[in-house]
């Protein structure tokens, strides 16, 4: 804590981690279907982008095929609902099956590095996409699977539309976000960041780099599968485009747009992406042109998302008084500028 920060306000900062719970209270303020649907969309695709960020931002693995778990789980959920399963067993079954798929595919993919890893994940996802297209008797081909979601009821409440659907999506999002935050704050999360920063050095410290990457891949697949189930409820079915490379591309774009080094950066990116797509569709019709120009600007000029930028600004602001103290207090080493009073807080991911 530094002198410029009002102690009362600073003490409240950890409460920000509980901010997602406000989503559950949102229907007290508005029950407009369009608003709740837009927020649900951001939560679902935000959760998907956050799951991908376990790989991209925390482990340094850029997957172009993450949508395969999203789609596999969406189709699984629809098929299980169609077979008469309840919402919770169907969800558990679909997420479980996708996690198993992530085990098998991850075991092959994480052996490869950088570009090769990216392209093998892309190839796997496109394989699944083509299987969905071809295997029409089961998957509905290019028409997808529709109709099953109408049967989705939980404790007698139909989840296919309106307020119950929003509340279900918001509750699952909150649970998933807390679980993911606990994950990245754990010793395992620190190991992911070690592997991302310096893979050989991690190995010299006894880290099993392959197993660590595989665990990250499986857990990212699990949360993508949860997002896939929620997407099925949101769009009333499962469609082949869910497995298409552009779905993974949108998640990568959300990470770029929001930032990869802050936990909720990808969620902010999903929100910005949604606003951009809505805005450009309404006013120009050249959505791809605007998004393409924005990607170029981010990659070539800014090189970080706005949430990353805000986080760095906040960290620099926190460090400023310490630097002043160090300069006036005859500190032994000027690089002590960024000393923080609470190292445990510093160790937590943002």
């Amino acid at each position, binding site marked *: 804590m530094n002198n410029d920060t009002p102690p009362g306000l600073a003490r409240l900062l950890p409460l920000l981690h509980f901010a997602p719970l406000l989503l559950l209270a949102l229907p007290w303020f508005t029950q407009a279907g369009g608003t709740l649907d837009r927020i649900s969309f951001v939560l679902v695709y935000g959760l998907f982008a956050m799951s991908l960020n376990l790989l991209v931002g925390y482990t340094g693995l850029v997957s172009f095929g993450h949508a395969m778990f999203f789609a596999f789980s969406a189709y699984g959920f629809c098929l299980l609902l169609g077979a008469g399963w309840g919402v919770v067993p169907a969800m558990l079954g679909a997420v479980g099956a996708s996690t198993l798929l992530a085990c098998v595919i991850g075991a092959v993919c994480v052996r490869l590095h950088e570009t090769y890893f990216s392209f093998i994940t892309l190839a796997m996802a496109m394989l699944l996409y083509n299987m969905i297209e071809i295997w029409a008797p089961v998957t509905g081909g290019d028409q997808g699977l529709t109709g099953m979601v109408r049967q989705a009821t939980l404790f007698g409440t139909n989840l296919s539309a309106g307020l119950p659907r929003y509340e279900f999506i918001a509750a699952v999002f909150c649970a998933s976000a807390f679980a993911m935050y606990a994950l990245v704050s754990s010793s395992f999360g620190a190991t992911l960041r*070690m592997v991302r*920063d310096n893979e050989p050095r991690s190995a010299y410290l006894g880290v099993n780099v392959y197993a660590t990457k595989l665990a990250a891949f499986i857990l990212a697949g699990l949360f993508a599968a949860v997002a896939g189930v929620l997407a099925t409820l949101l769009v009333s079915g499962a469609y082949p485009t869910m497995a298409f490379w552009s779905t993974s591309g949108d998640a990568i774009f959300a990470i770029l747009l929001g930032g990869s080094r802050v936990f909720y950066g990808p969620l902010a990116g999903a929100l910005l992406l949604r606003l951009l797509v809505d805005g450009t569709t309404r006013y120009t019709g050249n959505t791809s042109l605007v998004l393409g120009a924005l990607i170029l600007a981010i990659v070539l000029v800014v090189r970080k998302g706005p949430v990353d930028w805000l986080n760095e600004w906040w960290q620099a602001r926190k460090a400023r008084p310490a630097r002043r103290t160090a300069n006036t207090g005859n500190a032994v080493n000027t690089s002590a500028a960024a000393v923080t009073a609470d190292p445990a807080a510093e160790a937590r991911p943002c």
Partner: protein
Amino acid sequence: MLSLRHVSKSFGGNHVIQDVSLEFATGSLSAVIGPNGAGKTTLFNLICGTLHPDRGEILLDGAPLHGLPPRQVARRGLARAFQVASLFPSFTPWQSFCAAAVPERLGVAGLLSGFPRQQGRQRADEVIALLGLDAVAHTPVEQLSHGDQKMVDIGIALCAHPRVLLLDEPTAGMGPEERWHMVETVRRLWQATGLTVLFIEHDMDIVFSVAEDVTVLSYGAILARGTPQAVRADPGVIRAYLGSYAKEAA
């Protein structure tokens, strides 16, 4: 005790290490010297598991290390600091030490335990005190001076609870003052921990003032081994490596 028995390594027709047999007693402080290309770093790479010997055995307290990957060698109690500091750029020194000290990283224990764990914090605080890094403990490593980065590199290795510590040119790229500060720190940590320390160094003043015994490599073979005084007086070593230094010292 760290033992190498008839270790050889070749790359194609280039025999980089030739039938090297060495023993480093537990708790010793030993130097490996030799001209560029003598095979010093390759020897370290063989001990650490980065490379595997074509022939021969490497044993730590009787348990074989040869053929094991670096992570398993590390778990058997061998840690290494590098010629160019190998750090975790998004961590501060304190975080790096906490992370390096945590043994359970995967499985239920790793997932359920918060970071940093109590034992990691304790070890990090000990190492920071040992290396005198208090002033920079919470500064991002990218902002540290070269000397501090090298010190953090050693600290990361120490946090892994090693029995043997390998230091590859710990003073490389440092100014005279920083070099001697590093030498004093290495000597202090060796005395405080009782570790077996093995280091590569080009500065002969440092080697002969710090090391208990010196091994001289040339073209992948042992040219001489003994106390600093014996090695400095060895005609073969003077001819192949020390040259004018030995005359000046005399």
